């Protein structure tokens, strides 16, 4: 497996030592990106396809829960995890409600727990991805069928199927 095949993980913490430590622990399993503040993190999220983001809660420019809420808007597929030394229940609740938090971890982390939570997150991301691929494939199929139907001689059955197909296309367009 080359490094580009690894799942992408963005680590955000205002303490460079924490980032260094996490890099040392996770470099083999993930393609890592790091940011020391929320602003840099958002730039990376927009530039790269980030599968999982692990963010500290207390940072000077932007709180973790706020960052995750913005990531949820910019890149909804990214799985969001909060890492916090201050297990402030209020912050976690806010992150759950506004940032679509997947899990939260406390500092100091337990290596096994950290890894299993990250692996689960990657698996969830892949599941979402697979479901989306499948859905896209289904829609493509439906489109092809619809195009084919329009070449057929008109009959009540054919018209009804074309109507159903058009309704499905409209629904899909409004949903995404």
């Amino acid at each position, binding site marked *: 497996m080359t490094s580009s095949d690894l799942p992408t993980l963005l680590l955000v913490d205002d303490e460079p030592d924490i980032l260094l430590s996490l890099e*040392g622990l996770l470099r083999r399993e993930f393609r890592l990106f790091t940011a020391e503040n929320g602003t840099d993190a958002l730039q990376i999220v927009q530039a790269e396809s980030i599968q999982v983001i692990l963010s500290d809660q207390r940072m000077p420019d932007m709180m973790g829960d706020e960052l995750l809420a913005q990531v949820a808007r910019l890149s909804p597929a990214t799985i969001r995890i909060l890492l916090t030394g201050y297990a402030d229940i209020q912050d976690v609740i806010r992150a759950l409600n506004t940032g679509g938090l997947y899990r939260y971890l406390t500092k100091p982390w337990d290596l096994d727990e950290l890894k299993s939570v990250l692996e689960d997150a990657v698996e969830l991301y892949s599941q979402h991805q697979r479901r989306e691929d499948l859905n896209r494939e289904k829609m493509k199929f439906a489109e092809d069928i619809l195009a084919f139907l329009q070449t057929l001689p008109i009959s009540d059955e054919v018209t009804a199927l074309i109507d159903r197909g058009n309704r499905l296309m409209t629904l899909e367009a409004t949903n995404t």
Partner: protein
Amino acid sequence: MSTPESERIKILIAEDSVTTRTALSGMLNSWDYDVCEVADGAQAWQEFDKEVYRIVLTDWQMPDVDGLELIRRIRAKENTGFVYTILLTARSATSDVVSAMADGADAYLIKPAEPEELRARIRAGVRIVKLERKLERRRQELLDVRTRILEAEKLAGIGQLAAGMAHEVNNPIAVVSGNIDVFARGIQSLLEILDSWEAVREETQIPTEVLQRIDDISQRNDLSWLRESLPRYLHTTNTNVQRVRDIISRLQDFSWHDKAQIDRIDPVQAVETTIAVLGSELARAHVTVERSFEPVSSFTCHPPEFNQAVYNVLHNAIQASSPGDKVDIGIQESDGTLTILVADRGPGIPEQDRSRIFQPFFTTRRVGAGSGLGLSYSHRVIRESGGSISCSPRTGGGTVFEISIPVSSQSTAAE
């Protein structure tokens, strides 16, 4: 009601005329006062220096130290408490009386003193002296309370400080323990690489002098020691960092920091946490804990307060124990009541103190050793959660504290 000896008010009489002096002391004795009589001001001053007199009855005109001078000296003396002074005088001019009062006399009597008037003056003096004593006692009590409140605030501050410190330590500990894992994996990798090199050592065409140089470096750095020992060093480092992490997490569990203020807790787990927090205290006192825990239902409470309440009872038991003693802790549940028993093998609590042991500021320890607030806090917290706490003598010596909390009615109310 008889007045205790220390509470009796002694009266000093200074009068140079034997007849007057004898008449005065005769009257005062007949009214059951303790009297000391002297013949002049100088003697009175000497006597006043030796003994505590709260009422002084003095003639004005005396050789050397006269009555006014005596009163002035008494007023100037420190730490006497209030002294009620009555000046005896033949003079009755208003100006004389005013000047006597200005010099500090509290009352005056015209000679020869009428018995009833003397008695009234003395009674007025006794009333004032008693009031002053009461005031002084109250002042002392307030001072005590103030000291204890300051002490309690200080303790609360230390608790907050500990919780705050635990927070601050989390980040560096995360870095240290994370890096240890990085080192462990890194060393493992390096050894793996080294092993694979050594495996091919014989097969490859490496010049002998190069091999020799590599062997020298290996020997100088004691490669076999490194192989054997580095994992051990890592292991003990990890174990000890884990200990620090445990201490911090216990501190946080105990103060229930950052957690919901009302929660369901498992009493056995809560008591275990409290025992762990008191671990170093137990070790220092050479006291061991004997557990007899039955599985009990969880219940809803204010966890930090409940923990502190149990902590105080257990702390008290440790302080009552001697080195080598055991403290029994029992947890059981029957008929919807959770019972926590803490039994020490200490000297026991005298019966007359048993009702007072849960009162604030009651302590049998020397000043400064205990705030006298611990058990009263436990009492308040347990009572507020609908339970009760009591103590009784333990068979074979010592004291058993029993905490009872209704749990079944509470759980139906909470769910």
